[in-house]
């Protein structure tokens, strides 16, 4: 952690009762006291702290992909450990637990130009033995919480074992430090934060970044990834991987249930091209019994927009909704944190649809609205510009389609 900057607890934005507030600091920084943020751990290789990480389950640490590079070699794996505790000045920290397996995200690419939505610099570490006594912070998965937490200018707490000076003085390295900073910009796969007052630095990679919600609860939102040299530069913020984007992969690859709640890890809906020729029936009532949280949220949003009640089971009467929609030509579903439009696929009669400010990655279901003439998809997360072009090729006016191509909020 390069520089800790808050001159007083109040300026850090932490309430007095918050345990960490006592650790926050004056310029030059103060270590995180023992027993605080125990879930922030270090990765050691050959006895030296090389990265930071976050314990998210008694058997699972998430870190940066580049921090586990080479650990597919059994010999290298034998020399790698996880350290739990305050670390050691100079970085020679004693190992706490061995590593059984380490995996890099399959889409991680080192040193390539940045992709549109970040570089998937996320890796996982399966521990040889569980660490059950440590409480793990909840992951940011809920879509509503995500909208609150991942916003420009939001305060973010960084924890790591890295260098504490931009010059990377070897004598100021290896102890667990924390600092508050601000989010500068948010993309789907990465966010930018940090500056001259506080930033991550060498050795902080994989270290957790937390956001405190209005409710006071902390959520793990990201992992330190990369940044300028020297670190702590106001003109060049650091980059953190947004954990929400890869958490489904982490759960699947580790085989550990992370209780992801509202997050829909189901595969994306089939595209228009994958449906049999001539199929035109509505998908609204299809597979109601097995509907995932994403489609279910869309169904509830449709019900609310049409003034239909929600049953005790949390879903509306889909037959009624379908009937109402058949007589609806225009609908607004703005800012509802929608992630999956598959219930809309196949609906006839819908001509205008506003979907501003949602969390949509795929517009494929809109290709199955035979009468659609106009749609507004401003401020979503559509990752394939071809989907917009296909809609336009069918004569649909797409508003905000180009905005999807900008990876960062400016």
């Amino acid at each position, binding site marked *: 952690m390069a520089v800790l900057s808050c001159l007083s607890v109040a300026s850090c934005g932490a309430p007095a009762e918050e345990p960490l507030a006592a650790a926050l600091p004056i310029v030059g920084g103060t270590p995180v006291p023992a027993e605080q943020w125990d879930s922030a751990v270090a990765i050691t290789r*050959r006895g030296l702290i*090389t*990265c930071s990480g976050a314990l998210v389950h008694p058997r699972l640490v998430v870190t940066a992909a580049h921090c586990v590079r080479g650990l597919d070699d059994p010999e290298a794996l034998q020399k790698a450990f996880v350290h739990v505790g305050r670390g050691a000045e100079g970085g020679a920290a004693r190992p706490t637990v061995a590593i059984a397996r380490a995996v890099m995200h399959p889409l991680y690419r080192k040193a390539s*130009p940045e992709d549109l939505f970040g570089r998937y610099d996320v890796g996982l570490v399966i521990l040889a033995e569980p660490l059950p006594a440590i409480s793990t912070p909840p992951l940011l998965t809920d879509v509503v919480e995500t909208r609150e937490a991942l916003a420009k200018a939001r305060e973010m707490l960084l924890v790591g074992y890295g260098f504490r000076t931009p010059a990377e003085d070897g004598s100021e390295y290896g102890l667990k430090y924390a600092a508050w900073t601000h989010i500068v910009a948010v993309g789907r796969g990465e966010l930018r934060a940090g500056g001259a007052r506080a930033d991550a630095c060498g050795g902080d990679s*994989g270290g957790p970044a937390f956001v405190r919600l209005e409710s006071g609860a902390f959520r793990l939102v990201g992992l330190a990834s990369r940044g300028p040299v020297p670190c702590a530069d106001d003109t060049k913020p650091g980059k953190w991987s947004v954990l929400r984007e890869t958490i489904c992969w982490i759960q699947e690859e580790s085989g550990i249930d992370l209780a992801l709640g509202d997050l829909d890890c189901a595969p994306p809906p089939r595209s228009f091209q994958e449906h049999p020729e001539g199929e035109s029936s509505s998908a609204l009532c299809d597979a109601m019994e097995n509907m995932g949280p994403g489609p279910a949220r869309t169904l509830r949003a449709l019900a609310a927009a049409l003034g239909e009640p929600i049953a005790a089971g949390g879903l509306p009467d889909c037959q009624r909704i379908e009937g109402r929609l058949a007589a609806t030509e225009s609908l607004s579903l703005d800012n509802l944190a929608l992630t999956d439009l598959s219930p809309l696929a196949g609906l006839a009669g819908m001509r205008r649809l506003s979907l501003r400010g949602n969390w949509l990655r795929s517009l494929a279901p809109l290709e199955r609205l035979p009468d659609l003439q106009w749609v507004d998809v401003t401020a979503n997360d559509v990752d394939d510009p071809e989907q917009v072009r296909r809609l336009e090729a069918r004569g649909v006016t797409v508003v905000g389609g180009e905005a999807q191509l900008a990876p960062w909020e400016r």
Partner: protein
Amino acid sequence: MDRFAIASMLAIGLASASHTSLAADPAARDDAADIERGVDSLAVISHVDSMCQIWVNGTLRATIGPFGNSGVLTTAPSSRASRLELMARCDNAIYFKVLDESRRHCDFTIDPRVEGNELVVGPCDN
């Protein structure tokens, strides 16, 4: 020392030339200049009968005795292009090596029998 400086400048020039094709977009340039914030490591093993200072990217990081071993050191401070410039300044000679490729760990050996006073590299972990 002069040879080390010349080699460094030459390598910097080559590295700069290889980056001239980067996109004109300022954000892309910033991103390309980023380095990952993990720390790599190195160790220096001396086969010379004198004291040696170990300099990493221009910073004195360790002093080792005759036939000594530096132990595991971080490769900090980082350099912009993820380069590692390592120099061992011993009583009677200066040994050097520049690595342009990032490695998780490398051993380096000070061997007075090597022509050109280059540090011997390896083994390395990728």
